């Protein structure tokens, strides 16, 4: 395994759209940091394009989006913008208030995982680590 594979995982934790409730995203950021990951934490209200640039500049392994007040509806646009920027392999997960009937649509659009309220620390950390690891392997394979 190369040294780059042993670098801690880098995760972008953010909020897009119009809402700013950030208790959940702060707690998740702390969970991931405590688990040894590098977290790039942004102010809420990010624009989709700004987030894509940040993901690319910061060379992150995963994007976590927190949503409370329907901003998750913008996620398909984020995934589309990532694909357009050649970052289609970057896993995107979402946590927060996501109604059941929206969850299926988000998964179909390419969101890798929806964390609902009450998700445990272990579940979040292990899922993020597994998805980030998978993304790294994929990117390495592609670069050969």
């Amino acid at each position, binding site marked *: 395994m190369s040294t780059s594979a042993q670098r801690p995982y880098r995760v972008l934790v953010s909020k897009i759209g*119009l809402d700013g409730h950030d208790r959940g995203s702060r707690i998740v950021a702390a969970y991931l940091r405590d688990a040894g990951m590098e977290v790039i934490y942004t102010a809420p209200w990010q624009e989709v394009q700004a987030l894509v640039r940040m993901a690319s500049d910061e060379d992150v392994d995963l994007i976590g989006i927190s949503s409370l007040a*329907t901003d998750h509806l913008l996620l398909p646009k984020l995934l589309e913008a990532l694909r357009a920027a050649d970052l289609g392999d970057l896993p995107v997960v979402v946590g927060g208030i996501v109604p059941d009937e929206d969850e299926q649509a988000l998964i179909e659009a390419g969101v890798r995982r929806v964390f609902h309220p*009450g998700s445990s620390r272990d579940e979040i950390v292990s899922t993020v680590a597994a998805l980030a690891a998978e993304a790294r392997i994929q990117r390495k394979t592609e670069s050969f």
Partner: protein
Amino acid sequence: MRRQPSQLPLPGFDQARAEWRRAYGEQLPEERPIFNRSGIEIAPLYTPEHFSDERYMDALGFPGHGPMTRGIYPSMHRGRAWSQRQLIGLGVPEDYNRRLKRILASGGTAVSLIPCNSVYRGLDADQVDPLLLGTCGAVVNTVDDMDACFADVAVDELSTAMNDPLPFTLLALLLAVSDRRGIPWTKLTGTSNQSDYISHFVANHMFFRIALPGSRRILIDHIEFTNRHVPGWNPVSVVGQHMQQAGATPAEAMAFTLCTAVQYAEDCIARGMDPDTFLPRFTFFFDISISFFEEIAKFRAGRRIWARIVRQRFGARNPRAARFKFHAQTSGVDLTRQQPYNNIARVTAQAMAGIFGGLQSLHTDAYDEVLSVPTEHAARIAVCTQNILREEAQLGDVIDPLGGSYYLEHLTNETEALIESLIAKVDDAGGMYRAVETGLVQTMIGESAMRFQARVDNGEQTVVGVNKYRLEEDSDARASLKRPSPEKIEAQLESLRQYKKGRDSAAVQRALETLTRVADSENENVYAALVEATIAGATHGEVVAVLRREMGDGEPLIVP
């Protein structure tokens, strides 16, 4: 537990206490101490050694009088039940109007208006992604929109609470509607909810902000303006709810709210305003968590401290100034997605704590708020919960019914001391404005949020259905509310286009120029200029854009 002799004139007290302690210790030899959410240790039993009647007049007195502990009005809920103020707002103005009329038909007189998140961000409908329009509140940008919200409704016969963060464009639109209908502003009553800009900087939530110094000025301009021209309006609702939802303990939320109110009062005094005039129009808004006795103690302690502050710090003599009027909302953070019907039980307990705490107005959360924007079915259960507590359980029959409980009085005193120590900390940091500018308050709240979450994670704090009593198959129904259709949103956007075409653009232009000039000036009332611009036809997004440009955007004060 206390060790010293009780010194109470109760024959046999000391001996009986010693015997009870021995027996208690036999049953529970190794007991772990119990703390409430604010960190106060909770004893297994409270007796007259914790609170005795000799202190009655100093600590409790009578409702509407003296220390105010027992309530702010002489007759409290017996004279006038608390207002049932459910938050409503979704879709376009016509949707709001339909739901409003249903609430009024069922006897409601206190209503709320929750605008769309795009409004909170200071934007008109044509400035945001249409996907998000009307998904969390009503799209209200123009005087036509506001007129449609209140179509066939007498705005002067209602008490209207509007979620109308600074710079208070919704009130400006309501004033413009009143002009249109020939209703004098002096007949309007209601509250500018979300007027507390400091709380928006503390807990990010959804509100857009104008940079702190500009926000500070606009709020005081707004208070001055409404005191003079809309005297029945409460221009300030100081909010502890955001802070507690963001993770503050109940005691912290109360302390920081009182500090914020002190800051606003000092700013008004610095402007030359009279505390006896502006303080009676101050209102408060709190969260009610499920920590039952702790919440009751929080409200009683807060009421007592505020009465003292008003008299001692500000020298107010008007008895109405010492009234700690508050609205409260049951805590959304306590609700669970797992087994969502359990939330009805949680909301009931929270509401009871608020009622026993002596609130003036109550919003009970719908059980499905953790799943989506509430459905009408769930919202109705939330309203009925209040009806049941008031008219079947008869919780309003006796004023401060838990007053005199050894436990509650002791807890009220301990909570009061804790709140006072937190207030002193903020005072030492130079007051609330400064403490938020430097991030002191945000850091404390962030730490409390993490501490609480750690207790949930390690199982010390039970959350039914989440870390205990879980079900393999969770089959509770999870309906969620229909969002407005794309056609409806397109029609709303079209009405905005038509509105802009139909108005006197030269007059709007002139009014916006005046607003720009006033925003740059030092001593003219910027809110008066904003109201003028709105009456001239400017939209919400247009006036906000001017103020953002002239006064600066409020950057989130994020603690890393």
